[in-house]
């Protein structure tokens, strides 16, 4: 299988580390000079950029967390003047305490290149027709599939989240060869194909590029068997780039991290200590080339392990194990991230209910599918007021949808009925 940039992707590891060090010196110098937040963190730790002389010296620095990103809204973490920023993104929406991330033209060019690398790596060529069935409105990374496909010369059919029936019709009409979507949506297409009795032979699919949520191997097998393709995992971090941080290669022994742009560490999520190769822990990433929004030691909350031994595909880039677990309480439902604090923010708008809640997750084939929110009324809602109760549920459902982008069924419980909030 071809490698798009063998000079980088198959670079010997010593040269790669030298390149990482060259870039790290610049990131550290820029962050210290232009981001007050980082200058403060360095000063508090009694460090200067001169203390970062090797890649492991980065361990002297404190972590950057999601909370830091929220606290420094809007421009607190930007390292370049706004004149250099050409794109703003709000990875967790605009609701409540948002996060805003900026990208320069060069940042975007690198992002497109990273996704194109992964596409070429799994065998996508200029002869392919890529059906992008990601939610363009909610998942801003969807656009990257278009732009990276252009780089390769492949054609894009941006079907977004139109119904599975239409997806299947388009697949047949345009002979789509690649499906890019969340695994749960791919599963939904599988079910619809079975229901509508569309023969597998009518589809021309050969590659699936799936991501934005955890998906077990059983789901991979079902999607591959039912859609007649080979499915690959693509990984990203919303607060950095998603997709594009890492992707599977044909060997499927983990996802190759684009290490010329990210420095990866694994830490014990509780102690913060670095863990050796092969041990599971939280993935921590330092951006090496993001000019607008450099992040030093960003805690991704994703649990994985790193493997540095050579991969049969010929790439020398480190491999990370597929991600199935998080260190925080965020859950991903059909590719949409749901943070508990966002739900709490919405509930705070309704004085009629408590802010403690129970979230029930209905799963399908081992993946999160539907959410039901159980919440107790603050004052007893009498039976005479049932209509009001239904109205309230409806209103809360709409508010949650606006804030999170997902339908969450709301059920008002009787007082005392509420289970322990998760």
């Amino acid at each position, binding site marked *: 299988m071809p490698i798009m940039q063998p000079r980088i992707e198959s670079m010997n590891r010593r040269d790669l580390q030298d390149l990482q060090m060259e870039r790290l*010196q610049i990131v550290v110098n820029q962050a210290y000079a232009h981001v007050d937040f980082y200058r403060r963190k360095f000063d508090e730790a009694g460090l200067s950029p001169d203390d970062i002389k090797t890649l492991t010296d980065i361990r002297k620095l404190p972590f950057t967390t999601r909370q830091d990103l929220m606290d420094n809204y809007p421009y607190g973490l930007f390292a*370049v003047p706004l004149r*250099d920023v050409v794109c703003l993104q709000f990875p967790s929406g605009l609701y409540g305490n948002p996060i805003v991330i900026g990208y320069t033209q060069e940042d975007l060019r690198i992002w497109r290149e990273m996704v194109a690398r992964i596409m070429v790596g799994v065998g996508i060529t200029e002869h392919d027709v890529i059906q992008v069935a990601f939610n363009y409105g909610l998942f801003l990374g969807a656009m990257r599939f278009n732009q990276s496909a252009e780089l390769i010369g492949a054609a894009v059919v941006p079907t977004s989240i139109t119904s599975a029936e239409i997806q299947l019709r388009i697949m047949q009409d345009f002979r789509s060869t690649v499906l890019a979507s969340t695994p749960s949506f791919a599963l939904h297409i599988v079910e619809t194909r079975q229901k509508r009795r569309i023969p597998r032979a009518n589809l021309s699919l050969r590659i699936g590029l799936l991501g934005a949520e955890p998906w077990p191997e059983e789901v991979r097998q079902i999607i591959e068997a039912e859609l007649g393709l080979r499915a690959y995992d693509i990984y990203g971090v919303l607060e950095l780039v998603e997709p594009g941080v890492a992707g599977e290669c044909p060997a499927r022994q983990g996802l190759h991290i684009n290490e010329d742009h990210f420095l990866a560490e694994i830490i014990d999520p509780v102690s913060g200590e670095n863990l050796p190769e092969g041990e599971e822990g939280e993935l921590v990433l330092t951006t090496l080339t993001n000019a607008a929004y450099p992040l030093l030691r960003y805690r991704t909350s994703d649990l994985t392990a790193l493997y540095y031994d050579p991969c049969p595909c010929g790439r020398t880039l480190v491999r990370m194990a597929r991600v199935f677990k998080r260190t925080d309480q965020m859950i991903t439902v059909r590719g949409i991230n749901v943070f508990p604090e966002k739900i709490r923010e919405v509930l705070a708008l309704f004085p009629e209910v408590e802010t403690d809640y129970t979230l029930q997750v209905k799963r399908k084939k081992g993946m999160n599918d539907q959410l039901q929110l159980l919440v107790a009324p603050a004052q007893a809602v009498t039976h005479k007021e049932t209509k009001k109760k239904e109205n309230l549920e409806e209103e809360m459902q709409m508010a949650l949808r606006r804030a999170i982008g997902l339908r969450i069924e709301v059920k008002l419980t009787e007082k005392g009925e509420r289970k322990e909030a998760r």
Partner: protein
Amino acid sequence: MLKIKNIEAFYGKVQVLRHVTMHVLAGEIVSLIGANGAGKTTLLNVISGIHPAANGSRVFQDQEIKGLSPEKIVALGLVQVPETDKVFPSLSVVENLELGAYLRRLDEQRRRQEMDEVFALFPLLRHRQKQPAGTLSGGERQMLALGKALMARPSLLMLDEPSLGLAPNVVAEIFKTIQALPAKGSTILLVEQNAWEALRICQRAYVLEVGRVILSGSGQELLHNEEVKRAFLGKDYRGKWER
């Protein structure tokens, strides 16, 4: 071709380079830009072995050159054209060029042939062959310095401020010649005050600020970088958060 890592250098107690890490690939023109006192010239002097480095490593064509004498480094093909005193004023143009090839011990015919190549690159010098270098104009002297360096057949040529003190039309000529050098087998590391020209003709560039590498990227990319524009190209933006 050249890889330097964590270079630190001092003048007395003053630290002028702070763990500088960078590389140059074969066939590239790489520019090093920065304000006065950023440490550009010191960095070149460290690479060519003239100024001692306190720390770090310098690898030239897979060989560690730390501790080698400047002559040994030149013999390896790493040649520097300094900012000043680059030619011997009392020697003629031809003698200066011959000195450039001194370490290579060429036979007469070969030397003549290579000198002809230099004259082809700088036709003005052909008419001044016998003239003492001290009587040349600033532009001619710069050309002679380049020619002298090329006589050493460098695989990496380090140029320190080749445009310094020259008239604009001469500067254009010099840069045109520099741009043609990679095709003739030389890789270029260029130090320049004239940031616009240096960025325009290079593949990649590094920006030095008080002894630190603060930016790197392609020449085109840095030409459009607001920080570079403000610091070196004399352009200003209104405020950090205005467009």
